[in-house]
């Protein structure tokens, strides 16, 4: 059963790999010939590099924003009961629960029609940070729930002020949750296409946008396959990293955190 599912998961990916070497520009099956042309072109393509840099930049900035905001929000919701708590709780879930196209045109509409801001990388970052926040939020709040509340009291008891306590006790406890949430936020932002389509400014491309633009261009589609293969291979690094870090720092429960984290 599991083997079947894994086959189901990997067969199409394998096809992508095969097609990155497929001489046929429209990928007929079975492949007509073998070529390294696409790989060569992909590494020469400035467009790919530029889009990649943009994507990394957007993903990093929106991850950082969502890490900060998500952590603050999680701490507020986990520790305090206040009026409107449920509403805020729903609000943080909404951007991810709503279909991307809705979030996309809502933000597009707000930026261009209501606020009159011109679209740019920054509008993309705002949009991404909004829906990435929930991944950080969920990870952090789950960790906070499990975290021993006495630790912070112990810290205060030993003479540490509020900020020192956060820096020396709370933050280190949250680190692996932040890492998991951050990685996921990064992944989400990095691969986001729909919301990005609606919020990106003139002349800017992120990697998915570049892929979308080139997927259906006669000479570019195979190059896209190459990019995809590279992405898949490179993705092993952060996943292993997340695995290792979470396993080392908090043991069994981290496994749970990780899996839970891995969900948006």
């Amino acid at each position, binding site marked *: 059963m599991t083997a079947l599912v894994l086959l189901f998961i990997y067969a199409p990916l394998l096809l992508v790999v095969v097609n990155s070497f497929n001489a046929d520009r429209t990928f*007929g099956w079975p492949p007509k010939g073998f070529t390294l042309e696409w790989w060569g072109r992909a590494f020469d393509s*400035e467009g790919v590099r*530029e889009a990649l840099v943009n994507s990394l930049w957007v993903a990093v900035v929106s991850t950082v924003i969502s890490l900060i905001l998500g952590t603050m929000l999680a701490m507020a919701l986990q520790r305090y009961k206040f009026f409107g708590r449920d509403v805020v709780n729903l609000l943080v879930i909404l951007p991810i629960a709503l279909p991307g196209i809705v979030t996309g045109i809502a933000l597009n509409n707000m930026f261009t029609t209501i606020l009159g801001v*011109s679209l740019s990388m920054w509008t993309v970052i705002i949009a991404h940070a909004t829906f990435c926040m929930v991944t950080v939020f969920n990870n952090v709040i789950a960790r906070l729930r499990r975290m021993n509340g006495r630790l912070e009291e112990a810290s205060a008891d030993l003479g540490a002020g509020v900020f020192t306590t956060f820096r020396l006790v709370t933050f280190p406890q949250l680190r692996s949750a932040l890492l998991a949430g951050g990685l996921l936020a990064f992944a989400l932002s990095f691969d986001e296409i729909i919301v990005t389509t609606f919020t990106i*400014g*003139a002349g800017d491309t992120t990697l998915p946008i570049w892929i979308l633009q080139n997927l259906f*261009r*006669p*000479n570019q*589609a195979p190059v896209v396959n190459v990019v995809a293969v590279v992405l898949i291979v490179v993705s092993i690094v952060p996943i292993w990293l997340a695995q290792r870090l979470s396993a080392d720092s908090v043991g069994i429960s981290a496994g749970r955190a990780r899996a839970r984290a891995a969900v948006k």
Partner: protein
Amino acid sequence: GTTSGNNNPGATAKTEIGAGEGQVSILGWPGYVEDGTNDPKVDWVTKFEKDTGCQVDFKPFGTSDEAVTLMRTGQYDVISASGDASLRLIAGGDVQAVNTGLLKNYPDVYPFLKDKAWNTVDGKNYGMPHGWGANLLMYRTDKVVPAPTSWGSVFGDAATYSGKVTAYDSPIYIADAALYLMKHQPDLNIKNPYALDSTQLAAAVSLLKEQRKHVGEYWSDVVKEVQSFTTGSSVIGTTWQVGANIAVADGAQVQTLLPEEGATGWSDTWMIGSKTKNPNCSYKWLDYIASPEANAQVAEYFGESPANPKACALTADKQHCETFHSGDESYAKQIWYWTTPVANCLDGRKDAKCTDYSEWTKAWTEIKG
């Protein structure tokens, strides 16, 4: 998005080209503005930048509709608009009139591309023609026998290849049906496939709904379509010449033809945004892209007929212009270029009210169901 701007289609044209502003942002079909980043061998932008000192910032779009939306933001200086976008842009005041006298390559352009409904309004020119192509009928020679001659194969006789028919995925495709009806149902009195009153539209819609039952796939990008033909998922339907070329290159047994009814097609125009801050660079681009060298490169890379006959001599494939029937005016005459349908009937009828593009859009949604 929409920005409010002066609704002023008669903006006065420029009288001279000054020094470049150092930059120009261009909105265009993918493949129209290549600077070598995608393929180092395909590059005509770098030369432009070197010659004029105008840095090019390029944003491609997928459909005319997207093009209009993007142009409306006012962030772009120049756009390559097909006929179904150009009128909307002119009407929306998003582009300005162009003084063609300032463009030294303008006189070379095929005359049958000048002063057309999609680039000229009230006698004012709104841009530089770029290139054109027809929406042809393509079929698999091994699967479709006998060879078709009429659009009837994808309309009346679509059932023969049920599930393997393909069609262009845009409201503008309604015009293809209207063109067919124009020839086969004279009592509807269609004079221009882009000027349909509500009865005529309804007839086209019902024809397309009938066709829908046999359509295997609507295509919006040409590689996707080619792929379907190569694999055999589609065996007959509309195409662009460029698609046919790719298919043949990939070894598919396909053939294209211009059916007896004629065809719809596109003719693109480079236009300048009404709010541009870089008018000089914009004019320079319009002129540059119509130069024989650049025009040849674009036309060949994209797979269309160039606007400048001098380009034909410079294409790598010497047959290019022949394949695309570039100078063939009679061929061009059979083509109804994409034009945005508007309420004021384009065929000159004053008594009737025509359906506009937003109605076509809703009709298209309804057709696809």
